[in-house]
């Protein structure tokens, strides 16, 4: 007999991921707080927000994997949803600065005073209230994704054409946000944050909490996505990825499925951005740059497309490599390393790290086992999309 869907939701890979994530969420703050700086295991302060940043990127990668790995929508504009979520959180923190800014204006952020703006633009209203800002973190990327997806999927724009217009979307937003009169701080973006919900953003304890929250957000988002891809909804997504016309002839409204996945993915990207900004202390329009969005796709490809766990792993591995390469002597070679990595993964590991390891394990198992446990149902995306 088949097990109910809920029982099959997490495979071994999923459990390992959650256990490792929980361990990291505990170990990193403990090594930072509980140990004296003289201990060999002491984690220096700057590592906590850095690891927190990796977790936000991992969440962003999971969001991209949901649409790309499972539904074949190669979005090269997810950096935009991430940045919008980040801006929403940044706006909240800007409003919290109050009179502590350089110009000590009780309402207007510094950059508005500097630009001689007489009053707060209407779209900044409400951002002093945290729940409103959180709502916007979800709503702004979600609504944008809905409007964009509604037109794109209804017009049956697919493949490389869709990828190109997602690049155009993020590029257009970047140009807009670079402008001073757009009202989001122009090329400087939003920075000089003081506190979040009354806690000093620079304080090590706040950073530790943000770190744990990032791990929690990643875990919950992973569970949500995992549940979704294991449900019949997820099977329809994979079917759309592999044989879109066939799904239509079965009577499914393909554009609705794509739209639902795309909007959910955009909201998750927004959450990732909102957690990212207080940890790095700045959000500026370069987050919208098309290259950023392409980088996300590289993380997913490196980790293993269509595996969720792989996307998260790929984000951490590539970003750790980036940190390593961009500090010190190797700094000028990072972009070559990134490009080389993408070429190597595409040629040698088309299924990414996790996909390749899963294949090894499946080969080790006796044949009947692989068939009986349904683990053979691993969705394997076509290498080229």
């Amino acid at each position, binding site marked *: 007999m*088949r097990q*109910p*869907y809920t029982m099959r939701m997490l495979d071994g890979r999923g459990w390992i991921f959650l256990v490792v994530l929980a361990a990291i969420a505990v170990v990193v703050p403990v090594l930072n707080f509980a140990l004296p700086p003289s201990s060999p295991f002491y984690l220096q302060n700057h590592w906590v927000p850095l690891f927190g940043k990796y977790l936000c990127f991992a969440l962003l990668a999971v969001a991209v994997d949901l649409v790309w790995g499972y539904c074949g929508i190669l979005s090269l504009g997810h950096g935009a949803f991430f940045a919008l979520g980040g801006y929403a959180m940044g706006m909240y923190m800007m409003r919290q600065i109050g009179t502590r800014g350089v110009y000590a204006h009780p309402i207007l952020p510094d950059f508005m005073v500097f630009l001689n703006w007489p009053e707060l633009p209407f779209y900044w209203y409400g951002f002093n209230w945290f729940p409103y800002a959180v709502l916007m973190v979800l709503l702004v990327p979600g609504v944008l994704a809905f409007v964009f997806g509604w037109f794109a999927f209804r017009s049956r724009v697919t493949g490389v054409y869709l990828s190109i217009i997602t690049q155009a979307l993020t590029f257009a937003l970047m140009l807009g946000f670079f402008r001073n009169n757009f009202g989001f701080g122009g090329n400087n973006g939003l920075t000089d944050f003081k506190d979040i919900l009354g806690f000093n953003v620079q304080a090590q304890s706040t950073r530790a909490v943000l770190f744990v929250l990032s791990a929690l957000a990643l875990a919950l988002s992973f569970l949500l996505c995992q549940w*979704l891809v294991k*449900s*019949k*909804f997820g*099977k*329809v997504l*994979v*079917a759309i990825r*592999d*044989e879109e*016309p*066939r*799904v*239509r*002839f*079965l*009577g*499914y*409204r*393909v554009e*609705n*499925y794509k739209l*639902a996945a795309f909007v959910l993915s955009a909201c998750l990207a927004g959450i990732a951005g909102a957690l990212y900004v207080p940890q790095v202390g700045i959000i500026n329009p370069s987050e919208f740059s098309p290259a950023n969005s392409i980088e996300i796709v590289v993380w997913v490809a490196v980790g293993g497309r269509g595996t969720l766990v792989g996307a998260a792993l790929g984000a951490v591995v590539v970003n750790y490599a980036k940190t390593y390469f961009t500090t010190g002597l190797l700094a000028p070679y990072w972009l070559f390393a990134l490009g080389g990595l993408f070429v190597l993964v595409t040629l040698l590991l088309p299924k990414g790290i996790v996909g390749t390891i899963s294949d090894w394990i499946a080969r080790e198992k006796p044949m009947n086992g692989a*068939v*009986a446990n*349904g683990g*053979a*149902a*691993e*969705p*394997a*995306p076509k290498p080229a999309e």
Partner: protein
Amino acid sequence: MNGTAPQSLLYLDGVTVSFEGFRALNKLSLVVEAGEMRAIIGPNGAGKTTMMDVVTGKTRPDQGDVLFGGDIDLTKLDETEIARLGIGRKFQKPTVFENHTVIDNLTLALAGDRRARAAAFWHEDAEESARLDEILGIVRLGEHRDRLAGRLSHGQKQWLEIGMLLAQEPRLLLVDEPAAGMTDAETKQTAELLRQINRDRTVIVVEHDMSFVRELGVRVTVLHEGSVLAEGSLDQVSADERVIEVYLGR
């Protein structure tokens, strides 16, 4: 509409489809009654697949009426709406979801609520489970239920696709070359399967293979250059001089 065939399940009248000047269908008229099984034959380029595309909403005709169940205008609907009306289609090249197991392919096809939210919270009930097992038996894939569809043989994929059609519970099945690439034994079994399906559903079979059409033993429509050339039993149409000319004359 005009009373010529109000009760016909499928009614095509004067249907014309042009692709950049080439007339794939040229004033095609065709009537299929409920409960019938009809074979459609014709040389390459006769318009067989285009006819299916028109009926299933993939292609919009330039002219002509396409009515389903007497009063539903199919030219106004898209693929999804037409599928939901109860018209199922099997493609010429077996088109199954290769990264899904056999049972998941059938589950996706199984008649039911097609909305996204319903799919997210879907759980198989006993009735659906029994129906899936029944279909697995009909298409003889019981032993392969948890195999990936991509690992099936060509003939098994064809049957899986027919099974998916059955799971959809359509009123009308359009089956494009079901016996293509099958062994003789498989071809015989496929004919048997289609006859079995025809007991409670209307079936249109497009086929190249004359021996398969003979096996089916049903009324035949011969298409040529986008129109009906002849219609009748296989013996009648194969005695028709124009049909002989089209098939053998060049």
